[in-house]
């Protein structure tokens, strides 16, 4: 008789890779068909892609004919044009300035993601960062050559439009959200009208408005340059969406918090600043990150009114007669840049959601 303490190995077909395949890929006839279809799809798509993108691709060709001869992707094109794509028409010798500006902006974004800085220091970081970036980009002081903003371009411009857009839209958005929940009918109506009007129209129409209507709105002899107009359109647009995000947070604060603040005799301003907003804004950080991703992607629309952001400078690099017909490569390169930023931020927001949710889970 065998003793009970003798442990037997689990049946061979319930662990290990074979069981895994059986369980995860072939558990039912439908599942098996799906697996076969998926494998077929991968076999159809992957090898030609690898052949095009890696095996037959040319990385070092010096002319477009040489590049095309391989029959694969022409990554040499990216090597030739990356400065134009990343920095646009910014004077070639001064391109270290937008590079540093871009690094500062990225550092600002990363620091905003760290819980350690979620206090007053974040405000100083942003104000300091945005001022430094402006000085670097414009120049004109500290011995830096002045560079007109019509020459700005590429990745720094995309980052500037997105970060300045969110940063400046933030106070407006919070004010609009508070206004929408106000008990004063006139203020509430104004806020609702603004938010719903902006959210009902596409960003393109706002950009068109800023580029053709804003000049008409201003008194004679007074003009705003094109970049600033686009930035204003993005701020106005982002503020409406931000307001809705913040409103969600405001609604999630229990009524007792409002009443508690009232019973302490706090004014509306004190109540909002000390009690309500700190709690509400903490709840809405994940959707705020999503909004930032959306604004970051949407800044690519400024192409349509002819501003040299990452998208437009890429399109310009494609017009070089000596290097025609490599748009797929260029678009993949730019997609990769956008993807790294957006994917990083969305992963961060998912982590954050998990971390912040611990207090509420039962």
């Amino acid at each position: 008789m065998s003793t009970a303490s003798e442990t037997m190995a689990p049946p061979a077909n319930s662990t290990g890779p074979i069981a895994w395949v059986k369980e995860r890929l072939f558990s039912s006839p439908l599942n098996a068909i799906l697996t076969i279809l998926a494998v077929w799809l991968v076999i159809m798509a992957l090898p030609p892609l690898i052949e095009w993108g890696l095996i037959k691709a040319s990385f070092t060709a010096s002319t477009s004919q040489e590049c095309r001869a391989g029959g694969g992707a022409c990554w040499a094109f990216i090597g030739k044009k990356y400065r134009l794509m990343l920095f646009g028409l910014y004077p070639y010798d001064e391109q270290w300035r937008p590079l540093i500006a871009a690094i500062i902006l990225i550092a600002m974004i990363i620091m905003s993601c760290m819980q350690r800085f979620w206090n007053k220091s974040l405000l100083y970081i942003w104000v300091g960062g945005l001022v430094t970036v402006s000085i670097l980009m414009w120049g004109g002081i500290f011995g830096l050559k002045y560079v007109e903003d019509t020459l700005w371009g590429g990745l720094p411009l995309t980052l500037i439009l997105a970060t300045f857009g969110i940063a400046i839209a933030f106070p407006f958005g919070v004010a609009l959200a508070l206004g929408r929940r106000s008990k004063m009918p006139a203020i509430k109506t104004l806020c609702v009208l603004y938010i719903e009007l902006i959210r009902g129209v596409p960003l393109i129409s706002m950009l068109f408005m800023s580029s053709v209507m804003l000049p008409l709105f201003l008194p004679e002899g007074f003009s705003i340059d094109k970049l600033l107009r686009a930035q204003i359109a993005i701020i106005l647009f982002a503020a409406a969406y931000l307001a809705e995000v913040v409103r969600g947070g405001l609604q999630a604060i229990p009524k007792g918090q409002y009443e508690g603040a009232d019973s302490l005799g706090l004014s509306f301003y004190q109540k909002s600043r000390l009690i309500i907003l700190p709690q509400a804004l903490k709840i809405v950080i994940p959707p705020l990150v999503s909004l930032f991703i959306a604004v970051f992607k949407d800044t690519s629309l400024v192409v349509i009114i002819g501003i040299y952001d990452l998208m437009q400078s890429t399109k310009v690099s494609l017009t070089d007669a000596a290097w025609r017909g490599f748009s797929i490569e260029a678009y993949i390169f730019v997609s990769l840049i956008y993807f790294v930023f957006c994917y990083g931020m969305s992963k961060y927001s998912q982590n954050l959601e998990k971390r912040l949710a611990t207090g509420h889970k039962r």
Partner: protein
Amino acid sequence: MADPRVTGAQSAPPRRLSWNDPDVRSVVYQVVAVSLIVFIGWFLVSNTLHNLSVRNISTGFQFLTREAGFAIGESPIAYGPENTYARAIMVGLLNTLRIAVIGIILATILGTIVGIARLSKNWLVAKISMIYVEVIRNVPLLLQLFFWYAIITETLPGPRQAINVMPGVFMSNRGIKLPAPTDHVAFDIAAFGFLLAFIVIGVVVHYAKKRQDATGKAFPVYRTGIALLVGLPFLGWLLGGAPMELNVPKLQGFNYVGGATLTPEFAALLIGLVLYTAGFIAEVVRAGIQAVNYGQWEAAGALGLSRSQTLRLIVLPQSLRVIIPPMTSQYLNLTKNSSLAVAIGYPDIVSVANTTLNQTGQAIEGIMIIMAVYLTISLSISLFMNWYNKQIALVER
């Protein structure tokens, strides 16, 4: 105890105007806010009127009746450069609606499939769906549109070497050519049958629900519905004399004649919009399904329902309540995103209105038309989806 309302236990003393009175403050704030807005509005309008008079631009919508003088690449209604601006804008509007309606239908189907696939027990299927969703959602739509447009116009061969995907379907850099039914009254009857099927299904659903409430007997609504959707158009086609010939595109000279065409612009815009929005809809669907308590799955399993039955009868109806509101905003996004058409040259309302305002200088009117169109579409979609949301909302005691 200066506040009269605290000590005023006897007859209420007359209220005095005081900054400490919240009502007074509220009125003052509102008056200030409204007058500020009115002042800004007046400032902008007066500037605008002054600027317009300096530039000799007349305001108003009279320009709509003038001859447009520009051609539009594709149009669902007859249009030529000799038509008026009003008709050109109408063409733009119809093009926008066309891409929005087709896009919403296709994106919903694809998004639902991908969303369910992401939750599949099948590892490979779940991973592929996940990669799709992550890549699509993290690259700007405009870039994707440029990408598809470049694929169609640069990598596809010319019409003479067109790729013959299926018999009668040709892909070239001039667009996708499909066989189309020839002009025959039978197809009109079939289309009518298709519409009729929706009305009949509505009646059947109503009747089936009544009967189930009364007798508890379920009626095979889904199967009847599909049978009606297929059967009625087929019947109409038979009634019309069952014409068999299709208008297959043929190569003639340098291009194809006959058949239906998806222009490169339309195809790129449709592919881009559908793939992009489907990525977002997939996440909405996944979140909705995951929001349904796992106990529901287990209870359905205990009743002996299969996985697909559980999904169809138990889980999806409950998750619809979670899905509908975010789905509505995805539909609105798709419609608004269709305005990116202007970047690849599909003549939607933004593109046509933009051409119009460049030609006539009527910037304000042009922008107002664009905004009015999108606000109307957005509001209609919201209203419809809110109505639908009410229909499926949980009715509690």
